[in-house]
């Protein structure tokens, strides 16, 4: 397949979203090359702790070894191919296959097979290792490619999103908590990444929740949960000129973030209650007045690490997009605890993801619905190309190699396809 023919100026061919052959190529050229998020180190604190995760097309085990290091292993017995582990998380002294009891050390080495006399020598096999695993300040990523840029280089300017989440923790560390929400939709994975930085859709797709929040102004004075929901719903009701004031910062590699998002209390007003005041004081103690103010003022929403991570540092939440097929995607929504902060701060994070990202969310459910409508609509062959020109005239190249655009521009989507083309054609 000549992938280059799928992009034409500022338009992309519909095959990029619906063709299983394109999906298979994406798995090989993007998801077997790029750094993909695996887990947070706090999920495997003790020797023998493991979590079962998806890393692109493969199922992998992140294991804490006796020496404190991390192994990232394929969850496939080197003998007959059975999955070794089926529990999402656990602790084990060694990894044993349930089929013929081939047994592996925590680093994947084969340490035992039954009936060894049946072999001339102990089989020279072990659990396959993912070639590269690296942690960025506790966030563990893996890459199926043995070569390529290191993790820090890959993250580039978006490393600051992780830094900011860490800076928001009074103790300077984070812990994963609260399980994970999983949203499945019958649409292409790229739609989620594009929609997350598309600021024209909220006024239309989320009209139902915007109008309700406007019709029930008393919700802003109700219980804390309802207040948070009403603020979130109202935030989607900005008018185009207001959205335009949200700058899009697009970086090489497809990464992007939206700045200026919480200006005027959009999405979540700066809190002034006793819990937040105490939390703020903790941050001042850690960082000093000036830096604490900067940390809290970093007002970016949806920091996207292309191809499949979205970070919301302010609410200590993260989403990971897992492509399953050209027309099937699961989005995992993860919460982090700001170590040292009061439990009420963590409830805010839980409430944020429940309200914004649960399968029952008044917001996310409408997004997923339109992805599915696009996936169905793109089967139609009458129009081959999807136009991506909105706002292109306003793209402004910056000295640092990034591109700046206004909120209603399709800059982020063009930028994602530029990265897509780089991966897919090399």
């Amino acid at each position, binding site marked *: 397949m000549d992938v280059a023919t799928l992009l034409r100026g500022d338009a992309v061919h519909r095959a990029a979203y619906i063709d299983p052959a394109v999906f298979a190529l994406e798995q090989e050229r993007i998801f077997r090359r790029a750094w993909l998020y695996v887990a947070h180190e706090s999920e495997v604190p003790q020797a023998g702790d493991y979590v079962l995760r998806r890393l692109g097309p493969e199922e992998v085990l992140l294991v804490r070894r006796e020496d404190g290091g991390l192994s990232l292993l394929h969850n496939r017995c080197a003998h007959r191919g059975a999955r070794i582990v089926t529990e999402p998380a656990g602790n084990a002294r060694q990894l044993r296959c349930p089929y013929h009891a081939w047994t592996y050390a925590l680093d994947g080495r084969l340490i035992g097979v039954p009936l060894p006399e049946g072999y001339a020598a102990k089989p020279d096999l072990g659990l396959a290792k993912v070639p590269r695993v690296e942690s960025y300040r506790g966030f563990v990523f893996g890459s199926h490619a043995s070569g390529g840029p290191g993790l820090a280089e890959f993250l580039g300017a978006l490393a600051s999103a992780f830094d900011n989440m860490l800076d928001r923790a009074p103790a300077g560390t984070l812990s994963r908590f*609260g399980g994970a929400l999983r949203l499945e939709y019958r649409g292409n994975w790229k739609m989620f990444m594009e929609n997350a930085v598309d600021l024209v859709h909220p006024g239309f797709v989320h009209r139902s929740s915007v109008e309700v929040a406007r019709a029930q102004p008393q919700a802003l004075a109700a219980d804390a949960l309802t207040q948070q929901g009403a603020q979130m719903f109202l935030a989607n009701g900005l008018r185009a000129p207001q959205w335009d004031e949200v700058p899009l910062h697009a970086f090489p590699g497809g990464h992007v973030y939206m700045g200026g998002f919480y200006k005027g209390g959009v999405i979540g007003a700066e809190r002034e209650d006793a819990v937040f005041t105490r939390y703020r004081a903790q941050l001042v103690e850690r960082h000093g007045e000036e830096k604490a103010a900067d940390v809290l003022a970093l007002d970016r929403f949806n920091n996207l690490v292309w191809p499949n991570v979205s970070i919301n540092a302010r609410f200590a939440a993260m989403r990971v997009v897992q492509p399953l097929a050209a027309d099937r995607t*699961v989005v995992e929504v993860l919460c982090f605890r700001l170590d040292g902060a009061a439990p009420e701060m963590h409830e805010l994070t839980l409430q944020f993801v*429940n309200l914004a990202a649960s*399968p029952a969310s008044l917001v996310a459910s409408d997004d997923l619905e*339109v992805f599915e409508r696009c996936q169905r609509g793109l089967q139609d062959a009458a129009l081959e190309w999807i136009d991506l020109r909105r706002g292109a005239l306003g793209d402004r190249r910056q000295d640092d190699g990034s591109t700046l655009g206004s909120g209603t521009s399709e800059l982020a989507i063009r930028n994602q396809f530029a990265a897509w083309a780089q991966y897919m054609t090399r």
Partner: protein
Amino acid sequence: MIALEQWLRVQQFLFHEARLLDERRLQEWLALYADDAEYWVPYAWEQQSPQDHVSLFYETKSLLSMRIDRLERELSPLDSPMARVNHYLTNVQVDAVTVEGGAELTARAHLLFVEHRREEQRWFAGRSSWRLRPRGEGFLIAAKRVDLLNADQDQGHLRFAVPF
């Protein structure tokens, strides 16, 4: 042991709640809830608290009011055309409990929830439980919890407009 008549009254009340949802009489449904009511559908099996783990639904009455208002405005692309739903309740059990400020009842039932949306019919099984406050001849719902059997599994193509 609770009196037979009381058991029948609670059962009638729960069937009435289910019917209001099935018939989309959502304002009437909401009126069954106390102002301080909690509506909770956990996202983990045997989840202990909505405060330390994500939930599918964790809503107060004011939030439920927004949810219902949204459905009634018919602006949500998700709910167009409207889903048709049936709530089936069986194995109803009722217990009397004493709480601060008076007597309450707890009720439990098995739930089968069937939803038809566009060309697709989906089935969910779970266990519902209620805290009920006597109010005149009837009751007010102080809390409702629905534990889906597959709460901790991949929910597949899951999206809810109408609550359980």
